[in-house]
């Protein structure tokens, strides 16, 4: 008998230990999926470069403040271009949701807009090759230093993360409150706790009823005697007429509690609405003619030099002379430091780690006259290519690069064009085809 008990116990303890451990792991794993690490690299660099360089290009992004108190608001606003050369491997932006990248609910949403349309729900009808404005109003909740990005979730392509800036939330978490008044005039003091006690009260009551039922059975001789008696076919001893009466009373209690409770709840909340599951439609912005067109003749990524070099032909379609001011891809901004208008375009709130130190070197940097087609080189060299993990296009099935180029005319007006083309990795200097030394010769060759 004792040996039997021991053997059973060993088996059961082992099995239950394994089950409990695995269920806890599953539980915490699932939670972890919603909790990004509270450090800088919370996934923004993990996205494939072809997504980051050829889908959503965020620009003119500003953060209204770098430090807010808990319960104070911060606005992240700007624009994004949905890239025309959208990669085949990612779904087109037919269904999107504007969100924010921050570790969990440390900052809470107040309002969000795409092109001025409220974006509480997901939005349909966005088109590639178009520009959209966005605005995210957030509120500080948990004190700490948090990296805050705008994010466009594209159904079938995943979260496409915009530039991130550090935002410090000061004060205490208890300063944060989320009061709300319903359309029927019910005042909710704090959404964080609303309804919790009510649900717990019901769950507790149900739990007591369940526990009484379990104890009704567990207080008697259990496992071995009941098993032996079952084997002998003496069920009459195991379930008595008293048990029948208790079960009937319990069933009636359950039905009464549920029916009466439900009726009272329906009277208590006469006006309820279902979850709102519709999508909003964002109108298609009008076509803006490209002020300058760029054709990529050759593009190469110099692996040891951490440098992207492109031979391009730029055609000025405006009636004023223009110069190249900036090349931007995957949130990295390469600024032509020889052009004051481009340097002035950097908002003070823009994160410094996304500004490439050496900037953009333009081979033939003199103003491009109206109607002129100019061959030149663009050289974007920075360790950021490595730091931002953008060079896996070397191992990608679709070795292309894309980005935005900003031009400025002599009056300081800005124009924007998309640039995209195949990129060839170069592992030694011998393999290089693009020369940044002699743009004149290149011009001659193209002409």
């Amino acid at each position: 008998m004792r040996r039997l008990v021991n053997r059973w116990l060993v088996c059961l303890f082992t099995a239950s230990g394994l089950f409990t451990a695995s269920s806890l792991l599953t539980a915490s794993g699932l939670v972890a999926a919603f909790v990004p690490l509270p450090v800088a690299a919370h996934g923004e660099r993990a996205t494939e470069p072809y997504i980051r360089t050829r889908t959503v290009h965020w620009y003119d992004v500003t953060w209204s403040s770098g430090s807010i108190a808990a319960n104070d608001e911060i606005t992240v606003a700007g624009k994004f271009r949905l890239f025309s050369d959208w990669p085949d491997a990612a779904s087109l932006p037919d269904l999107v949701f504007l969100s924010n990248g921050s570790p969990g609910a440390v900052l809470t949403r107040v309002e969000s807009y795409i092109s001025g349309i409220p974006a509480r729900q997901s939005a349909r009808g966005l088109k590639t090759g178009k520009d959209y404005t966005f605005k995210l109003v957030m509120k500080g909740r948990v004190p700490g230093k948090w990296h805050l990005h705008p994010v466009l979730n594209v159904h079938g392509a995943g979260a496409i993360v915009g530039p991130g800036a550090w935002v410090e939330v000061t004060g205490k978490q208890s300063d944060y409150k989320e009061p709300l008044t319903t359309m029927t005039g019910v005042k909710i003091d704090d959404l964080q706790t609303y309804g919790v006690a009510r649900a717990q009260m019901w769950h507790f009551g149900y739990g007591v009823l369940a526990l009484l039922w379990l104890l009704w059975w567990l207080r008697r001789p259990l496992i071995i005697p009941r098993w032996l008696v079952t084997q002998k076919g003496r069920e009459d001893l195991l379930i008595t007429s008293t048990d029948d009466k208790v079960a009937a009373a319990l069933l009636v209690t359950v039905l009464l509690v549920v029916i009466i409770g439900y009726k009272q709840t329906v009277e208590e909340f006469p006006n309820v609405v279902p979850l709102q599951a519709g999508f909003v439609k964002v109108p298609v912005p009008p076509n803006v003619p490209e002020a300058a067109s760029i054709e990529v003749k050759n593009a190469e990524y110099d692996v040891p030099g951490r440098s992207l070099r492109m031979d391009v032909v730029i055609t000025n379609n405006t009636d004023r002379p223009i110069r190249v001011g900036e090349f931007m891809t995957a949130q990295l901004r390469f600024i032509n430091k020889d052009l004051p208008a481009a340097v002035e375009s950097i908002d003070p709130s823009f994160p410094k780690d996304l500004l490439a130190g050496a900037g953009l070197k333009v081979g033939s940097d003199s103003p491009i006259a109206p109607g002129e087609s100019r061959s030149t080189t663009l050289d974007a060299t920075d360790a950021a290519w490595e730091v931002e993990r953008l060079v896996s296009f070397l191992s990608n099935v679709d070795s292309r690069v894309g980005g935005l180029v900003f031009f400025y005319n002599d009056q300081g007006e800005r124009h924007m064009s998309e640039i995209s083309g195949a990129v060839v990795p170069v592992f030694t200097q011998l393999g290089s085809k693009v020369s940044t030394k002699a743009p004149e010769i290149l011009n001659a060759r193209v002409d």
Partner: protein
Amino acid sequence: MNKNDALILQSAELSPQAAQWSRTFDYLIIVVGAFLVWSVTYISQLLLAGDWDFFIDWKDRQYWVLITPTVTIMMAAGFQAIFWKLFRLPIGATASLLLFLVGVWIVRYHSWYGMAYFPLSLVIPGTCLMSAIALDAILVLSRSWLITGMIGATLYGLLFYPSNWVAIAGYFQPVEHMGSMASVADMIGYIYPRSGTPEYIRIIERGTLRTFADHAIWVSAFFSGFVCVFSYYIFWFIGSFACNPKFVAVGTRFKSAFGGSGKPAAAGESA
């Protein structure tokens, strides 16, 4: 110990000492069994009903009402079969759902609230506990898995929505936000961001159910009761199957490969 308990021990032919030992065994088994029932129920619920149970803004009139009872009745039926067939104990469903509810609240406080900063209002769980108690009570009254499956499982599905509505109805009051209407639940889901969880992945009220308007919920509840019947029978059979240990006879060569003597055991000698 009442008269009936004494009769049980007498019928089981347990000596007073053996009866005492078996009671110690009972207490240990209750603890071990509780962990087993809890974790098995928990895993199946996480895997099969996941988000509908996690978040208040997933608790819709269609899938939540349909999926949650259909999933929880699986383990309820499985454990009910095991406890009933082996021990005539009508507690499988209640134990499974009570332990699950306790576990869910622990994880809500510890992980969702403690680790991920979510407010508890976002992660209010649903419960099938009242359904489970009714299921066990009907098993006692009918003594039949066939009737329990037909009446009890239907009731199980039907009771789910009203027994939860009492707890969460307040989350479905209308609110105006940015010029459109939303429920309080939608607002909680919107205000507290879940990273990597865009709004469009919510699977709520798809298809033609919306045309039933206010009756949608009872259409779902009845359909849920209907599906629960099948869910119950399937898992009752799986539970019953688990009550019948089967042995595969192996030869002496197999035994010796695993370190056995390879000789047939002599009569009276225990393996």
